């Protein structure tokens, strides 16, 4: 019988980090569009870096910050008595950083396609910027943002490098699907490793199918809107 802990752990980590990234990514995409061009270029590079850096480099940097002897980690341990690494939720830090660029870039693309005259006309009839953001801009960019979220979720589910460094592999505590596969393969448990591989492929398949359907729907609604 398959111990389902890695599946549940992977799902909760992916879900929570996707929710965090959803807000962070949209927030960054919205505000970076407004900063001066030179600064925008630099910020854009910094925010996209985790997409091209090896996850082990992300993991290393995170340990440099969150480790129990490092600035933030030490402070948390002293004040709250909480260790930020090697717990199941430590993986959330890792996956959030790794998937952030996916959400940020898709949200930015969706916002760039937004027809600005809609915001202008809304302002001039007196609608607040908050109303415009949630009731006009977000619905307009909905499918693009949704596709970005699902893509980020899929990537979070498959994150290995940074997660294994920050959360480690402890069966029943921090094990995720990807770290479990590695561990089972390393210990020559090929049958179990293969089962988890199948589980992983099945989930990723469904998620990517959802992304494709959303993107197709978006193209159709764009066409219909013209």
């Amino acid at each position, binding site marked *: 019988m398959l111990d389902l802990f890695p599946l549940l752990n992977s799902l909760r980590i992916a879900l929570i980090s996707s929710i965090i990234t959803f807000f962070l990514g949209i927030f960054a995409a919205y505000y970076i569009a407004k900063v001066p061009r030179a600064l925008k270029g630099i910020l854009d590079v910094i925010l996209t870096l985790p997409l091209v850096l090896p996850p082990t480099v992300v993991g290393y940097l995170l340990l440099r910050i969150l480790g129990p002897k490092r600035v933030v980690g030490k402070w948390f341990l002293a004040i709250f008595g909480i260790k930020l690494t090697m717990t199941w939720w430590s993986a959330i830090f890792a996956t959030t950083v790794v998937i952030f660029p996916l959400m940020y870039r898709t949200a930015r693309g969706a916002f760039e396609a937004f027809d600005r005259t809609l915001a202008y*006309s809304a302002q001039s009839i007196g609608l607040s910027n908050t109303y415009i953001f949630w009731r006009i801009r977000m619905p307009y960019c909905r499918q693009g943002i949704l596709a970005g979220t699902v893509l980020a979720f899929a990537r979070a589910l498959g994150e290995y490098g940074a997660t294994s460094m920050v959360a480690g592999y402890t069966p029943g505590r921090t094990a995720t699907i990807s770290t479990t596969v590695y561990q089972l393969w390393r210990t020559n448990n090929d049958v179990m490793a293969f089962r988890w591989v199948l589980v992983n492929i099945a989930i990723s398949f469904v998620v990517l199918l959802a992304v494709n359907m959303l993107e197709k729907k978006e193209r159709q609604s764009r066409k219909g809107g013209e």
Partner: protein
Amino acid sequence: MALLVDIEKCFGQFMLRVRLNAENEVLGLVGKSGCGKSLTLKCIAGIEKPDRGKIVLDGVTLFDSENHVNLTPQKRRTGLLFQNYALFPNMTVQQNIRAGTLRDQQTEKERKRKVLDIMESFGLSDLAGHFPRQLSGGQQQRTALARILVSEPQILMLDEPFSALDSELKFHMEAEVRDVIRRFGKTAIFVSHDRGEAYRLSDRIAMMQDGRVDHILSKEEWLLESNSVIISTDSIPQNVILVPKES
């Protein structure tokens, strides 16, 4: 109900320099595309910020660079109709128009009555549940105008309102828009590159060239200056056509 504009704005090589005033009339702002007409409207609406100058509407200072006054577009009460009408695609006709009632404190009942009334007067009642993409160009324009008027602006600004319509509909909508402006009764600015259109709809005309407006002409003065003559088969203002003198 007076508008006073005296602004400057620099866009690289392009310099906008607009001085104009209007009082309870329809002011035509005429010029070639790219001469700064739309930009002028955006400055008045608060979407673009001028570098220097002053904009006053009915005694309220909307913008004054010297005293650092720059009201948000929401507070300016300038109704601006965009070329593409800018209807919210995720809302029905009724929801689009209702969005125009959200600025002022009022009960939901009052809002609903206003929306239903204006839909009635614009002939949109049967289309209340339609989305913008399901409407014809003329219906979209009516919805956009209704949404602006229900927000009770102090000035109506129309940016090339007929450019997105085919010629037959254009003729029809021109009459409708003239009627809307007349009922509105306050100052209106009408931007166009079509001289005949401007002549038919405006009381006075400001010529805009390379970002500059210096003076406003009466229609007669403008005819002389633009070297045009009127051809009209009868006295219906819609049938007035302007042509250059040479032809």
